[in-house]
């Protein structure tokens, strides 16, 4: 298989952990809350899902448990950031550290074990196309993630819920004045974001690379946070950002098969280097951020 078609075939699956976590964080940030704990929440989701699959519980149950665990941990963040109005940066870091600690404690006796991933579904006809055919052979979670992307895009674009979320993020005082329960809505957004991060972790540990290793999330939660900024808080752009990172994270595999003489450590750092560069390019355009940014992001709200 050539490098190009290899990347096309693997890109969507590699992008899925980024995509799920970033979509969840998009909803959280649109509501005006910054949850920096994604990395730890993903790690917790990853370990609980792995354990469920390892003990024969099956993937659907594993994903459900991961979503619940992510939800629960993100509500600890919610309590700090919304309940007692702690600094959101510190609260996110605290929950992230807690999540990573918990994942490593829970996964202690599962280190380096493996499970079986999910079968892939091919789109009849399209899957046989040359070069791009691999793009249409994906597991069900990838297909569902594409649906979720469309659903969240539609929610922000057309639904009243999307409007309410944005109002709460743009101007919480005004949203409250017209009768919306700002804190309750923000709690809901945080819980949703946590569940999505849990699912992202579950995909990483039970489908994409079906094994458990401490620290296996390897910065993907942080890259998902950066993706929300890259996408300037717009669903479509976040989707393409996730695809880009999916492709970048496959580069090291391609380099191995093509026999490039590049240190593997450089290829492993590639996603981080690309994150720094793209972040600089996007954020230096202040107009872009001003138009699409969330006005009250990270600000505590209360009387």
């Amino acid at each position: 298989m050539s490098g190009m078609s290899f990347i096309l075939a693997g890109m969507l699956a590699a992008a899925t952990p980024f995509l799920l976590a970033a979509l969840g964080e998009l909803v959280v940030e649109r509501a005006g809350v910054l949850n920096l704990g994604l990395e730890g929440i993903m790690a917790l989701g990853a370990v609980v899902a792995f354990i469920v699959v390892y003990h024969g519980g099956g993937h659907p149950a594993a994903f459900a448990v991961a979503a619940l665990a992510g939800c629960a941990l993100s509500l600890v963040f919610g309590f700090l950031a919304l309940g007692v109005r702690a600094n959101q940066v510190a609260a996110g870091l605290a929950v992230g550290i807690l999540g990573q600690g918990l994942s490593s404690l829970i996964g202690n006796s599962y280190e380096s074990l493996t499970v079986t991933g999910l079968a892939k579904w091919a789109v009849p006809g399209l899957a046989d196309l040359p070069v791009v055919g691999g793009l249409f052979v994906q597991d069900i979670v990838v297909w569902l993630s594409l649906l979720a992307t469309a659903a969240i895009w539609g929610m922000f674009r057309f639904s009243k819920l999307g409007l309410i979320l944005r109002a709460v993020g743009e101007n919480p005082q005004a949203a409250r004045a017209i009768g919306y329960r700002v804190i309750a809505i923000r709690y809901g957004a945080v819980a949703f974001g946590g569940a999505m991060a849990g699912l992202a972790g579950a995909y990483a540990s039970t489908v994409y690379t079906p094994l458990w290793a401490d620290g296996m999330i390897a910065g993907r939660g942080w890259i998902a946070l950066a993706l929300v900024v890259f996408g300037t808080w717009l669903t479509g752009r976040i989707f393409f950002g996730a695809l880009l990172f999916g492709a970048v994270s496959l580069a090291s595999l391609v380099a191995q098969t093509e026999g490039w003489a590049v240190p593997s450590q450089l290829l492993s750092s590639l996603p981080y280097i690309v994150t720094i560069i793209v972040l600089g390019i996007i954020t230096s355009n202040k107009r872009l951020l001003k138009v699409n940014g969330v006005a009250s992001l990270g600000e505590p709200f209360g009387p």
Partner: protein
Amino acid sequence: MTLRLVRREKASTRMAVLAPLLALLAAMVLNLLLFLAMGKDPAAVFHAMLLEPFSSWAGFSEVLLKMGPLLLIAQGLAIGFRAKVFNIGAEGQFILGAIFASAIPVYFPQATGAWIWPAMLVLGALGGALWAVVPAFWRVRLNANEILVTLMMSLIAIQVLNYLLLGPWKDPMGFNFPQSVMFQYDAMIPILLPGTRVNVSLLIALFSALLAWAYMQRSFGGYQFLVGGLAPKAATYAGFSEARAIWLSLLIGGFAAGLAGAAEVAGPIGQLQRSISTGYGYAAIIVAYLGGLHPVGIVASSLFMAALYIGGDNAMVSADLPVAAVRVFQGTLLVCYLAAVTFVRFRLDFGASVEGGRV
């Protein structure tokens, strides 16, 4: 009955002192439940974790050894945190400090002289500061969030370390282990307390606390930092430069973390290896917050956190507790502290009140 938070007219000093203690109590209760769930005897675990580090001189000297890097890094970070510059990449700056310092013994393994270890410390501090230049430039000139950039720089630092240890800096006589040569005698920081591993770098760390105190509490420059963090607009109108605060915060944080990294390889470890940092850079974030971002508070919290590290090692041996339990305890502690510290500025109000309303 409804519970609500009401802003105090004046921040409570009593609560500011009580908050870390309350947080410790709450974290102990939560972890007690966790230990029970894991089938461990909580009494044995807490004894190993919290008392044993202080019960013998040998144990306590190890606590002092761990305290040095935590204290140094946290003092550097706290200056930035107070100015609302969130450098969370101390881990990477620590690693770069260790790498820069190691360059001398790796390239000049035969060199002798009393200048070597001081030169390593200086080089390490510069390396840490250099690693912080990217996030500072990105934030000031490109408007990019320093939280994400510092974190990414840490992940890259680990890869740089791996590259050196698996490639050019690998000890040719090291049985293919990913580690550098053992450093020569003159590349090691002199021991401070005979019979222990505590070296002169502890004095440097304590001196940094004094410097931080003088700078933050007693100088105009430190005052500008505080105002910049609390009221950025007012600070700008008064002519304080935000860019300067960002550059200084990140460079000081990187410098301190780099110094700590250098002191670690030139101290207890004595060579460059993969496990030079056991999460000091992240633990120091907790140390900085637990100490109330205050130079004096951080001395206390770094001592406590160092004891927790040693206690965790004890509990691993005597109570068969996985080492990750310490990370969980640290995380719980920070969560509880952030909840407790709210009551410095707010008080709980039961029932109806004239001011404020239901959210």
